[in-house]
């Protein structure tokens, strides 16, 4: 394994030409024979560096599957996925683990903090898992993150002593601590009230604008998607639309357009916060 490939790409210095994440004919099949379901059907898509991209689509559209494949959490049936120049669809489990540890960050819907550790311990966990010391540079970066995310007074608290919004901000700090090339956020506001949700989304946007990170977020909420620089719409496992500089209105319009394409308009009704995900 060529370890040099896994060095985190520092800051935003990467050449603007190469996308952070790419998918080429990415396909994922579930089941066999008659019962085969094409969750993802030959998707080609690029995600730019230093951008905040939202993936949107109705239930069962394949948006979560796309993220799982691009993040190296799941294996593709065919096609290729790249993070930078690394073809992740060709990596084994241990290589994927190192890739996730060093080059990818995650933000989950249910926060997924470790209950027995303090906020600070949770944030630095990826560094420790990688067997690295929390050095001066990391400390500085931690201070920046803590300040940006407004966690200063909460670092010694355990997750059970934090509100949902605070927990999610800790989770964002954890995702950013190793300065990953890309952060995947899966419905980061799904478990939050709208005020905390808005807070978290603006933090995500600030991470991109001020800290130069790359974030790919899966959401079904047009308001949340509107915080992104770009929205990619997915339906039936294919890319169905691409909206730059979205507003809630333009996103809703795009979704409406999708809805008219569907055979059964009642299915795939999204836009409400109670929608059930695939």
């Amino acid at each position, binding site marked *: 394994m060529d370890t040099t490939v896994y060095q985190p790409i520092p800051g935003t210095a990467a050449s603007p030409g190469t996308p952070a994440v790419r998918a080429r004919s990415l396909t994922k099949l579930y089941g066999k024979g008659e019962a085969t379901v094409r969750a993802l059907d030959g998707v080609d898509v690029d995600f730019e560096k230093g951008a905040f991209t939202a993936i949107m689509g109705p239930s069962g559209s394949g948006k*979560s599957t796309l993220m*799982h494949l691009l993040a190296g*959490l*799941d294996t593709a049936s065919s096609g290729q996925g790249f993070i930078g120049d690394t073809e992740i669809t060709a990596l084994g*489990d*241990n290589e994927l*683990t*190192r890739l*996730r*540890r*060093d080059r990818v*960050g*995650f933000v*989950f*819907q*249910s926060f*997924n903090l*470790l*209950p*027995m*550790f303090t906020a600070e311990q949770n944030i630095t*966990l*990826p560094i*420790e*898992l*990688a*067997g690295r010391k929390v050095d001066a540079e990391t400390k500085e970066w931690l201070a920046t993150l803590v300040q940006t995310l407004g966690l200063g007074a909460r670092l010694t608290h355990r997750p059970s002593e934090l509100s949902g919004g605070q927990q999610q901000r800790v989770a964002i700090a*954890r*995702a950013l601590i*190793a300065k990953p090339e890309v952060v995947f956020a*899966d419905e980061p506001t*799904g*478990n939050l009230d709208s005020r905390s949700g808005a807070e978290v989304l603006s933090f995500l946007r600030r991470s991109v604008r001020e800290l130069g990170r790359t974030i790919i977020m899966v959401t079904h909420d047009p308001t949340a998607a509107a915080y992104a620089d770009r929205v990619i719409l997915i339906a039936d496992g294919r890319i169905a639309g691409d909206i730059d500089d979205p507003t809630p209105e333009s996103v809703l319009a795009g979704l409406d357009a999708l809805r008219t394409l569907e055979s059964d308009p009642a299915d795939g009704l999204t836009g409400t916060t109670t929608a059930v*995900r695939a």
Partner: protein
Amino acid sequence: MVRLTLAQMRRSIGRLSAAGIAILIGTAFLTATLLAGNIINRVTTDSIAAQFADSDLVVSNGPGIDPAGLEDIRGTEGVEAADPQVLRAFELVSGGKRTYQVVVPAASDPRFEAQELVEGAMPTRSGEIALPSDVAERLGLGLGDPVTVVRSVWTPGAEDAAAGTGTTADEGAPSEEAVAPEETAPADATADGDGASAPAEEAAPGDEAAPGDESPAGTFVDTNEKLTLVGTLDDPMGAYAQVGGAGVLSNDDLTTWEADSYVPGEATTAYNAVLVALAPGADLEAVRSSITSSLGGDAKVWTSAEYAKEQAAQMTGGEDVFTYVILTFAAIALLVAALVIANTFQVLVAQRTRTLALLRCVGADRKQLSRSVLLEAIILGLVASVAGILFGIGLVQLALTVAGTMDLGIPLPPVVQVTAVAVLVPLLVGTVVTLVASFSPARAATRVAPLAALRPSDAPTLTSGAGRVRLAISSILVVGGAGLLVLGVLLGQQGSAQAGLLAATAGGAASFVGILVGAIFWLPKVVSLVGKVLTGSGSTAKLAAANTLRNPRRTAATSTALLIGVTLVAMMSTGAVSARMSMNNELDGRYPVDVSLATDGYDEFGGNQPVALPQSTIGTAEKVDGVESVVPLTATSVTVDLDGSDITFLARGVDPEAAGTLVRDKEAVQGLAPGTVVVPAGVAKDWGISSGDQLVLAAAPLPDDGDPQGTPATLEALVTPMGGRALLVTPQTLEGVATGTPVTSAWVGLADVNDAASVVPALQDALAESDLPIDVTGAAVERAMYQKVVDTILGVIVGLLAVAVVIALIGVANTLSLSVIERRRESATLRAIGLSRSQLRWMLAIEGMLIAGVGAVLGILLGILYGWAGASAALAVMGDVTLAVPWRDVALVMVVALVAGLLASVIPGRSAARTSPVEALAVD
């Protein structure tokens, strides 16, 4: 509700079966113990019954049946033959080999013959003997070969009975009748390594009619009888298996010898039982009543089967104790199993919080929830117990089958006989234990609020909830128990070992229960401390340490289960090693050397004529593996004039330099030189001799050949911590006092006295080839003897406790797999943020080792403390107690615990590693 319970059980089948295994092992242990007890009883009954062969009736009488009674029985109508039941033991000698052998008279009717001939014939006349084929082989005898039987004969007139030694042997007073010295054998000699004195005592109580205070003048003299081997025997039914097989003598010889073995007028021949064979066509009941009436008194007439049952019942009183002891260990195993079960149910209830709350929302009341948990426990207990009983039966059957293929000389039943007790008791105990263990989880289930159904599901946690009552009970038990323990030690040191041991046992048990009850308060803190130390060693260890602290109660319960077994194991081995060390110290003080070989060993008072020890014996001893050096000692009887009277002593001559290298305490021979005599401290005390006294040693008059040659020597006494009763001088001095003193003994030094258990038997075997009876005594010999006993007992106890430890380790595995299931999402998150599969597995392995290791370390510490307390209380009467730590056992327990903790994490680790990181994204 029942349907719901069953549905829930189906969902938790994996977790339940892990808990079930704990109960399964416990009940299997219990079943196997009960069945084994039955088999022992049955084998005992069968072998007793086998002694009666095909006889129809057995007549017994309280005081015994005299020969006249036997004739009465023989004369009863319908009786075809009647033989008395006689078992006697004699020493057999052939060449240099000797053994104690139980013999029975030849049967007058083939129906009374319990054994079968392999070859040759049964003895029919005086001077003939038949022996079990293995005994004949051991003695190197073939048909027609001569064999010597040593028997005691009452000899009137030999008044000067042996002084001091207290044996009934004749050595003290060699008389006209006495045979040549090399043919005398001490009646209680056990030095031939056969250890055959036990059957002699058991089988021949009549022989114990030793000279009483008012007995006529005379003494017992060993007499040799030359017999011819006419037949070899097999004992297919194991009639005499318990006494190591029986030889057969002609009735004439046995009757004559029997009469010779009593002091005239003191005792008469009486038989415990008489076997009766009926004439063809005779009515059993009629004969029975006519014998009863003709004998009168307490006479009872049994059928053979009835009598065997009665005898077995009397005998197995002792064996039931054995069963009870093993049942204690089964109880410990079940207690540990109960802890594992309680733990599992706690977790199950915690995991089902949402379901339980939902049920409460839709109208289930507290009682129903509690009943559901208890029902689940009963079903689990029943199923696991049934499986355990089957497993136990299978184990015993397997043992029987394996034992059946080996020739153990005991006729074992081929198929295990299952009794109602052996099934019902384990079934009841297993079910009740499971039920009781689920009481607390059932209560926890009732505390689930309906509201819990509406809360987002967090990882289930059990609040510690350890109440003040628990703390109070625990403190009282620990403090009170510790007080009793100290009292026990003090009592022991003041000489009342029994009261001390009793107090120490009660105190130990109470404080241990207190410690277990209070484990929830302190055990997690210890784990946390150990965990903190581990935290330095990396992120995986840090995660593992943090994980063990998430649920203190569970960690405490899991560690406690292991703590019980480990404490008991450590206590036993600490007690054993302390006992061993204390005994070693005690022996070191008593014996000057490791081993001493002597031909005159019984008479350190100097009353006997020394018998020369052949040079070849010394050569033989030197060749034995583990023997470092052998130093010959000359000896003769000397008289010393003390306060005007001549006192006879045995004086030994030994080279001072060689002796210095051998004796355990160098001071014992310090200063030994020409012109000095070493006086053992014990002798000095008895006779008022002190260092610097001038003693005149003169050769003692020999009993058989007149005056000794030599010149008396005046020597300076040196009182030293030497053991024994013999005076020590240089060989040259002794030769001057009595010319031609023979070498009669040798001191043997072992390369490592801790090897006594293997070297001493080897030495005894090598010396058994000699024609001379040689006494092998010394610290190493006793050490070898008790080491074997201590090691055997310890091995058995540790083996039995191991079952409890195994169950506890299953508990560790169970806890880990429950944790894995609980932390599914968390494992996935860790995988998603960069924990590799092997790191995840390693994390669980550390967790397992932490739980097991802490339990083991604490168990070892407690066990050592208890072992020391027990040893102090019990052994103080022996002298100074040496408190020792069984390092080897401690290390072994530690390694076993850590490896087991590691192994316990393998299966949970695999399932955790299979967790896909995608699951971190799942919302339930």
